[in-house]
């Protein structure tokens, strides 16, 4: 299949999944993260559904790690990759941003068509964050 077409279909299905699960709604995500408040555990089920589906399918697909061109230098597919300070620090910083806004990258991009100023500001700032990383750590 044409690589652009298959990527388009994947992005579309991914987005529909986020919309159906209401992960695109920051207030719902925050209610999931707010264990001490009126906790909404439903987003844990999104994770369960996704992990079971992908876990099962990738066993059938059987794609060796070396074949996967991971965007992040194989950090999440290479079993030999080490846990380092960057992984912990970066993930911790990401979590703080996620907790402040209720937005992670996918849902934020989906929100762009909702015409909300908050979504535009978040996505613009996120890309500035990407650029900041590129300028501080030389290339990607």
């Amino acid at each position: 299949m044409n690589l652009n077409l298959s990527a388009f279909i994947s992005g579309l299905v991914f987005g529909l999944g986020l919309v159906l699960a209401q992960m695109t709604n920051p207030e719902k995500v925050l209610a999931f993260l707010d264990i001490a408040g009126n906790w909404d555990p439903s987003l844990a089920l999104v994770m369960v559904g996704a992990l079971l589906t992908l876990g099962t399918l990738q066993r059938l697909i059987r794609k060796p790690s070396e074949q996967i061109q991971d965007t992040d230098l194989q950090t999440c597919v290479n079993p030999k990759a080490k846990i380092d300070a960057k992984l912990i620090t970066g993930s911790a910083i990401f979590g703080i941003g996620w907790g402040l806004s209720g937005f992670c990258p996918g849902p934020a991009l989906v929100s762009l068509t909702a015409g909300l100023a908050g979504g535009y500001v978040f996505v613009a700032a996120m890309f500035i964050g990407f650029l900041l990383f590129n300028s501080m750590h030389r290339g990607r």
Partner: protein
Amino acid sequence: MTYLTVLSSLGGGVLIGLAAAWLLFFNNRTAGISGIAAGILPPWQQGDAWRYWFLAGLIISAPLWKLFGGSVQIQIDAPLVVLAVAGLLVGYGTRLGGGCTSGHGICGNARLSVRSIVATLTFMTTAGITVFLVRHGL
């Protein structure tokens, strides 16, 4: 949690898992959104066109869903200044940590990558603490 919420949450997860498996099968790529999005910034490399197509599909999903009668609820309560700071942290943090909720949380965890499991526990913890401080502590 209603029966319908359980179904739509699980169903949404299944679609996300399907999309990730699809990208893995046809494109040999992991569906990490932060990595795919950051990859459209310079320096540009050959063979990056698929990124734009993936992102186009992702962004068009909500209006398409509405077109077929679905409802899309997006409620943002945080002030713009907070969203700007949060966006910066999410952009920088996901690059430094090499993934976000999709790359580590779904793709990496599904492969039982220790790095991704550690990353997921870390961002879940700091996100939980942040929400606690904002809503109950400050």
